[in-house]
């Protein structure tokens, strides 16, 4: 089976075959023979050339194609695409085509909206302040541009993934 994995913006080709606990894989042409044990859901103990890698695979809450893989105390955000079946994520989120969508990353309450419709903002300027878990978090604009949409008002309750504002 061949998969495309994206990690930190770079694409990698992963080819994998399994016969019980024996796994043969190629990652960008690097060949690995791995002894793999899955004793618990999502936890894979890999032994490759006697080195131990305990890997925990978690599915992301927001986007389903994105996985979080922890190896020991290191963590990787991985997006998998199966050329045969899955449709890759078309970068639906953040800054597609010069437009920045300001998205709520967790549930909370809007405390203040810091910009007005049509205003010009700098990259890094605060757009909305959301309070959750007793902390006020200022959500900043990833780019300089003009506020073309404000979708929430102070006092509103928002969920993770809600569109708060758009900067173009």
């Amino acid at each position, binding site marked *: 089976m061949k998969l495309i994995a994206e990690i930190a913006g770079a694409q990698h080709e992963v080819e994998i075959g399994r016969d019980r606990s024996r796994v043969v894989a190629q990652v960008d042409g690097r060949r690995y023979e791995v002894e793999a044990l*899955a004793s618990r859901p999502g936890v894979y103990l890999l032994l490759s050339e006697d080195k131990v890698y305990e890997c925990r695979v978690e599915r992301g809450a927001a986007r389903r194609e994105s996985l979080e893989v922890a190896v020991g105390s290191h963590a990787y955000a991985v997006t998998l695409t199966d050329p045969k079946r899955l449709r890759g994520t078309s970068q639906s989120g953040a800054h597609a085509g010069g437009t920045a969508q300001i998205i709520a990353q967790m549930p909370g309450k809007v405390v203040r909206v810091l910009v007005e419709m049509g205003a010009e903002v700098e990259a890094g300027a605060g757009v909305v302040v959301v309070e959750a878990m007793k902390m006020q978090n200022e959500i900043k604009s990833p780019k300089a541009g003009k506020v073309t949409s404000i979708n929430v008002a102070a006092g509103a309750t928002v969920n993770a993934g809600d569109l708060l504002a758009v900067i173009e």
Partner: protein
Amino acid sequence: MFRKILIANRGEIAVRVARACRDMGISPVAVFSEADAGALHVRLADEAYEIGPAPSVESYLRIERIIEAAERCQAEAIHPGYGFLAENADFAQAVADAGLTFIGPTAAAMRLMGTKTSARRIAVESGVPVVPGTTDPLSSLDEARRVAAGFGYPVMLKAAAGGGGKGMRLVTSEEELPSAFETAQSEAAAAFGNSEVYIEKAIERPRHIEIQIFADQHGNVVHLGERECSIQRRHQKVIEECPSPINDADLRERMGAAAVKAARAVDYTGAGTVEFLVSDATREFYFLEMNTRLQVEHPVTELVTGVDLVREQIRVAAGEPLSFKQEEVAWRGHAIECRVYAEDPENNFLPSPGRITHLRSPAGPGVRDDGGVEAGAEVSIYYDPMISKLAVWGRTRGEAVDRLRRALDEYAVGGIKTTLPFFRQIVRDRDFIEGRLDTGFISRFFARRDAAAASTEVGEDDTKRRDMALIAAALDYLTAQQQAASNHQPQGQEQSRWRLSGRMALHRRS
């Protein structure tokens, strides 16, 4: 001694207090909001009372519901933990009025130390040095501007009713003052129901060092030495240690004496903490405030002095004298605590609520993990995102750091983001290892880290580790695919393992 204690709190501190109750043969009673029905602090209690919906104003902050529960179960005393109602004098008074024992100081002592302006006045009166600034809440932005101009920038804006760094703002220039003043007031109002703010001279490169004190009802007041809490993020402590890396017996003695003086001035009883700023250069110290409750970071003092502070709180509340004298307090070795938060350190420490799918707590020599959650638990958006306190002890600070590094590497939490990766970097930081701490540590640490990241090359080991991550991800996908294809077909042992895994994975997706 009490037979039954109601614990008016949740999370790790409720668990901590329940453990002390168990040690003493006292039956612990929990209260819980609708969001906490299956929480660990409920599971470890003998009885549990639901006190309202998830938001804390509708549950953990409802004084009458809590006292009602205590009366219903015939508890003799209430332990408030920290946070929520722990520093609410009205609560302490209401508990006393109901004929129950409040495990903490009197409402009067709490009121005197409860606002920073009043506490500061008491400190000045009893001869404890304070930081230059106002002792009364600011009436307006104009007043703030005037006072700040008096001793010059940087200045610090602080919520009068605050604590834990909430409602604190550093202002480095007059231009920043208007927006900071507004934000500080609004955060103070949101967090404490009191928008009063005061202003102080900001001391540059100060160390935040606090003294644990303990007083009984028989006039004995002692101190248990200091905790250094200079490592703060957004003015909130994240790493605390005992002793301070300064480890100066003379300074400890002088600060301890000052703290005891402040406690005596308000006829304090129970556990309390007097916070100071200490100038790293001159070793001068300034009274900041007094916390009239158990601190989050109490375990480091416990590890070094051997005294169980919660047990001592309960003893003292029951009228017993302190179980030790000042001259019997001895400090042995070094302890460090990390507050593990459900926050994403790679994303500006944004809270990361969600279900904990996997949990491996560290263990072994010198490691104490005070957790408030178990695998399967939901970290709710309604409460403070701290999921555990990891504390370590070592014969020396070096050994403590070694054990902390090991424990952090062993610690695994799945399903939510935590501050563990951030701590793993800190324990490898040269300044931290050498104990060069002040309240500006974190921002300098971030600068160092970013500089280091830019110059680090990717080694062979890193590539291989990353490739293993990709292989694990692919295996997980493959497993789910095969599971979908061969659902319900008879399978052998090894395959059924994979099958279970795949099934759970699908389940999680749905």
